[in-house]
């Protein structure tokens, strides 16, 4: 197996095992999505109206829970030194970590979302758009999150600053993702928003490994 695949596999394994973050993110997402309808009450039209926004914000916040550990676990126990000295360039290391984070949080969240959409009485076509928007938008959450995680790498309580850095950068994802869902509710075509979301996500996944690698390099020298 290539070094990239082996790192991806190892990080996914760590997230899935005890003490990992995959189950945590998923339960947090499910709990938030359950509490909101309880708080708003049985107004079915209102629930369907807010579903896209609430589920998107919930997904971003759940993904955020495990983002601060993306590099930090390896940094604190010295593994990151060893990974940095391996033949795998740090850019690809970052990409592998982004992919592992998406596989262990973004993808499960996306798969769970149609079930949670039922709680919001979201109609079928809109649920489809929600699913697709999460599928193409959550990689951007992991990718931009990786930049934040690498910047706060050597801070003791970096997890507290991380949301302040990345949430503003994630607003386009939430706007286009939730926008696609509400456009469909209004009988409009949501594909335009999805296309913009896909473009944003593509650029984020392509470029952020470089930013993250540069910042990891700085932190290894600190």
């Amino acid at each position, binding site marked *: 197996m290539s070094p990239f695949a*082996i790192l991806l596999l190892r990080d996914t394994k*760590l997230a899935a095992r005890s003490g990992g973050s995959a189950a945590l993110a998923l339960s947090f997402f499910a709990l938030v999505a359950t509490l909101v309808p309880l708080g708003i009450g049985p107004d079915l039209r209102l629930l369907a109206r807010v579903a896209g926004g609430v589920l998107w914000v919930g997904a971003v916040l759940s993904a955020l829970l495990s983002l601060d550990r993306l590099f930090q676990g390896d940094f604190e126990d010295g593994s990151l*030194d060893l990974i*940095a*000295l391996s033949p*795998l360039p740090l850019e690809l290391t970052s990409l592998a970590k982004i992919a592992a984070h998406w596989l262990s949080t973004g993808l499960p969240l996306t798969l769970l979302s149609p079930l949670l959409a039922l709680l919001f009485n979201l109609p079928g076509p809109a649920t489809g758009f929600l699913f697709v928007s999460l599928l193409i938008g959550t990689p951007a959450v992991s990718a931009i999150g990786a930049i934040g995680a690498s910047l706060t790498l050597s801070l003791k309580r970096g997890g507290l600053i991380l949301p302040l850095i990345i949430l503003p950068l994630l607003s386009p994802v939430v706007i286009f993702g939730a926008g696609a869902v509400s456009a469909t509710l209004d009988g409009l075509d949501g594909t335009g928003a999805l296309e913009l979301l896909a473009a944003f996500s593509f650029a984020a996944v392509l470029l952020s490994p470089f930013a993250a690698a540069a910042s990891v390099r700085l932190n290894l020298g600190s």
Partner: protein
Amino acid sequence: MITFLTAEKLACARGERRLFDGLNFRVKAGQALAVEGANGAGKTSLLRLIAGFLAPLSGRLIVKIADKEDDDAEERGKLVGWLGHQDGLKPQLTVAEQLDFFASLYRSKAGAAVLEQVGLARQADLPCRYLSAGQRRRLALARLLVSRRPLWLLDEPFAALDVNGQGLVAHLMAHHCGEGGIIIAATHEPLGLSNESLKL
């Protein structure tokens, strides 16, 4: 194969403090260099500098490999076998998983023989959280062996090890030098090799 590693007028600062200045040394293939000095003298910083994590304030580090001299930090990193003062082990992974991961990452092979060599053959399927400090150190040594790198940078190689373990480290170091490798070790104890030493 690596021929030598040379430091020319190397200087290093952490924050406002200058750790060392005008440092010159040369280590040839098959030689070991013991870096000695009080706590905080910059031993670990020197190792991180050689590994390319830190940039020197001034001066150069040159590696001669296959008749070519090179002072690129990134290229030098590809020669380094690293044994830091942290073990870099994940509590959730088993000993064998841990070693296989690093072997594949370094495009190398981990056999059961390596675990046998460091005395961890019976613990192969044990998650690392159950290992003692000395056993963790032995696993880190196994990882250093499977990395198959010519330039070993060791930070306190004898730490946490029992008498047998210290003998093992001495044996492995002698073997590495015998094969034409280079060792630079930050240590408070004698390496047990006919090595040069550098006082920081």
